[in-house]
């Protein structure tokens, strides 16, 4: 019994699309099997079939060699299949233990026996090195910890096969490392793992084998050790992908953005940014690296005018903009690709066309004397969508909500770059996107720099920072640790500085 789970020739159709077409996936006992594919390739559908959320139209599923019919998630649970969803399903004002035992509470008479459950939770936590406090409330623990609670839920139910759906998308680099460690522990204890992801690095780091699907079709299953990242990317996207970003020699010009001794209060009423000074010149990309929550968000919000600066000054092309309104900053040629495209970047219920004029609607030709000009708005959207390869089913009239994540992001990038900015602030510009879209957006950002624009790039992905930046500023605890030349620094050094260790010091 080499294979613990076999999904054979699975086909699943939804009205209008074939989400899975003749896909087979075999999970060996004790392996980490990556399921790789772009957004929309059919990964989640396939796993939802295994987890009993959908029934396949054709094909069969074998678990431990026996053909099974997984009609609903309860059946999957009984077969020892558990899933860690991308978006956690936890009750926030319950404790860790209460969440874990929810649905299969231990009882003492008619009273819920939380105590024995907590003992079991602690045992599991120690056995797998999860380090979870059984009595902590979910709302008080970090996202990484919450994910471990989700893992514990499956272990508590004696799952043998664990499906992780994009588990690293919400984690900091350190937490990713810890998660990988946990996954290795799980394997050592005899579990088998399916890892859904589109991040090649993670696959190389941890997976044994990898099944690649593209547009609902099986491309192949490979041994990870013998496949390069480039090879995997090509299988996923269907063409060669360049990882390094092509850009010209850095020719920094005048200072565009100057931040002087800036301090900003965070929402928790403590100083999130403590006296930071830095400058961004035209024709360069300054990358701001740091672990999430170390002041990047507050810094960006102060520069873009969405948060008040407590001390210090911000200058754009020599003009003090510290107390300018958001709109005046936009008019001073500042473009801003926000971190959260759903919260800030787009009005999802507006059409794409209306979203494209979000910062321009009051100016001609989009309106005159307060009256909107539908024709001009539509034409503008068509132009931007064409230039930035934004695809939507119904053109500019489609609701922004109906676009895929990659197209939404391209629309935002298009809108911001189309305004011909002098300063482009890009925060996590490729979060949650697939390789193709990442490559595209990186190229457009590099283009801006090449044409003499100043770019401030903020990202939690160290790769992105190292790939794109000319200089790298490292922030920790709201303080600037150092600014270094991107060519003369290693990933390791930046990582150490992100942890607060200055250059030359030893950790």
């Amino acid at each position, binding site marked *: 019994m080499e294979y613990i789970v076999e999904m054979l020739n699975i086909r699943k159709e939804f009205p209008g699309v074939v989400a899975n077409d003749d896909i087979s996936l075999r999970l060996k006992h004790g392996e980490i099997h990556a399921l790789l594919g772009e957004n929309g390739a059919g990964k989640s559908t396939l796993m939802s079939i295994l987890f009993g959320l959908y029934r396949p139209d054709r094909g069969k599923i074998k678990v431990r060699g026996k053909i099974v019919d997984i009609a609903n998630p309860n059946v999957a649970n009984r077969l020892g299949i558990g899933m860690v969803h991308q978006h956690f399903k936890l009750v926030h004002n319950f404790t860790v233990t209460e969440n874990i035992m929810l649905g299969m509470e231990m009882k003492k008479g008619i009273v819920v026996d939380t105590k024995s459950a907590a003992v079991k939770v602690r045992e599991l936590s120690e056995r797998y090195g999860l380090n979870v406090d059984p009595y902590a409330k979910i709302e008080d623990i970090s996202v990484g910890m919450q994910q471990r609670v989700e893992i514990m839920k499956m272990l508590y139910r004696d799952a043998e096969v664990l499906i992780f759906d994009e588990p690293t998308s919400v984690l900091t680099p350190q937490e990713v490392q810890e998660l990988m460690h946990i996954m290795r522990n799980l394997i050592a204890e005899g579990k088998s793992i399916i890892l859904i992801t589109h991040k090649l690095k993670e696959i190389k780091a941890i997976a044994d084998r990898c099944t690649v699907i593209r547009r609902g079709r099986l491309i192949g299953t490979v041994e990870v050790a013998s496949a390069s990242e480039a090879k995997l990317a090509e299988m996923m996207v269907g063409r060669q992908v360049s990882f390094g970003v092509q850009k010209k020699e850095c020719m920094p010009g005048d200072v565009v953005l100057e931040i002087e001794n800036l301090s900003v209060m965070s929402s928790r009423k403590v100083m999130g940014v403590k006296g930071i000074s830095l400058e961004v010149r035209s024709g360069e990309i300054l990358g701001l690296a740091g672990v999430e929550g170390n002041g990047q968000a507050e810094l960006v919000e102060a520069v873009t005018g969405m948060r008040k600066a407590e001390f210090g000054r911000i200058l754009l092309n020599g003009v003090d903009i510290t107390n300018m309104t*958001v709109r005046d900053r*936009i008019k001073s040629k500042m473009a801003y690709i*926000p971190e959260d495209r759903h919260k800030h970047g787009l009005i999802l219920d*507006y059409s794409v066309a209306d979203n494209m004029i*979000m910062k321009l609607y009051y100016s001609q030709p989009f309106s005159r004397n*307060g*009256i*909107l000009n539908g024709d001009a708005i539509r034409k503008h959207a068509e132009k931007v969508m064409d230039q930035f390869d934004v695809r939507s089913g119904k053109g500019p009239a489609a609701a922004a909500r109906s676009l895929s994540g990659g197209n939404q992001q391209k629309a935002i990038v298009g809108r911001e770059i189309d305004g011909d900015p002098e300063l482009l602030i890009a925060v996590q510009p490729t979060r949650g996107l697939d390789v193709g879209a990442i490559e595209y957006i990186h190229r457009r950002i590099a283009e801006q720099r090449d044409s003499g624009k100043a770019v401030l790039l903020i990202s939690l992905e160290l790769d992105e920072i190292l790939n794109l930046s000319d200089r790298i500023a490292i922030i920790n605890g709201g303080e600037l640790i150092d600014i270094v030349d991107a060519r003369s620094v290693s990933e390791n050094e930046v990582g150490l500085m992100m942890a607060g260790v200055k250059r030359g010091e030893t950790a």
Partner: protein
Amino acid sequence: MKRFFSKSFVMALMAVVLGLLAGAVLMLVIGSNPASGYMYLFRGGLMSIERVGNTLATATPLILTGLSVAFAFRTGLFNIGAAGQMLIGGLCATAVGLTFALPKPVLLTLMVAAAVLGGALWGLVPGLLKAKFNVHEVVATIMMNWISYWTVYYVVPAYFKGAYLETESRKISDAASLKTEWLTGMFGGSYINLGLFLAVVAVIVIAFIIDRTTFGYELKAVGLNRHAAEYAGIKADRSIVMSMMIAGALAGLGGATFYVGYASNIQIGVLPTQGFDGIAVALLGGNSPWGVFGAALFFGLLHSGKGFMNAMTRIPPEIADTIIATIIYFSATSILVERNWDRLKRKVGGVK
């Protein structure tokens, strides 16, 4: 937008048909003939020019309160305060009408302006509370309803006491009424008044603001996603205050059409039901200005026809109210159906 309208139009029609069917079942249950019941209900609202006039006059305040709720809703706010805004608008109009002796056109203009301002003020307070202190507008507008109720309770007996009753104001003069001889004459002595034209103008203006202006673009943007609006440089606080003021002004105008149009004086101790019916009108009208117009006319018809139905059959007028309630119920659930339908489609369409 067009697609949205047609879809919500179908949903509204479905709610109306289901509501009427439910009413028919009720009539059968009490042993009456639904066909004759409905015949008399509709004849009661439509059979003579006078009754048509009354139907329109009954619908007029509903158009405006419905528009008030719908406008607020389109800009992300829930205005439960149309009743209070309407009442205070009526009080302001009545007060001006009873205080000044001016030629009719001047006096009416002043009265309408006073009603609009009064309503706007009643919208301003919840708007400011929401914008500055994040006080939920549902709570604030409900409290404003009672402030308006007690203001009338105090002001009317103290300053505008009626000739015979302590509980209502004096009757306004003909010069201060939105009723005009020619219009009343044309509709055979009905309650119809100039308020109807004000309501139609309001529908046109609001439809234009919502769909065609940068102002409407801003208000809707803030309503749909306040964070994104602020990111784009729109002043969200200002938009919220403006939305509530306009919603209040519309309901205040509705007050004028009721208290110095349909009626001729104002009672104490009553919050006008049209304020709350406005929520139902907005719901059935799919929150679009012309949808509100149609829904208000339909509700006006049911309201004005139910007396005749009661007179001609053994069916109590409460059946008409029940039908209205059922329609509200069905239009509320149709929104649920529609929403779930969309979610279902998204789920199926958005698989990874």
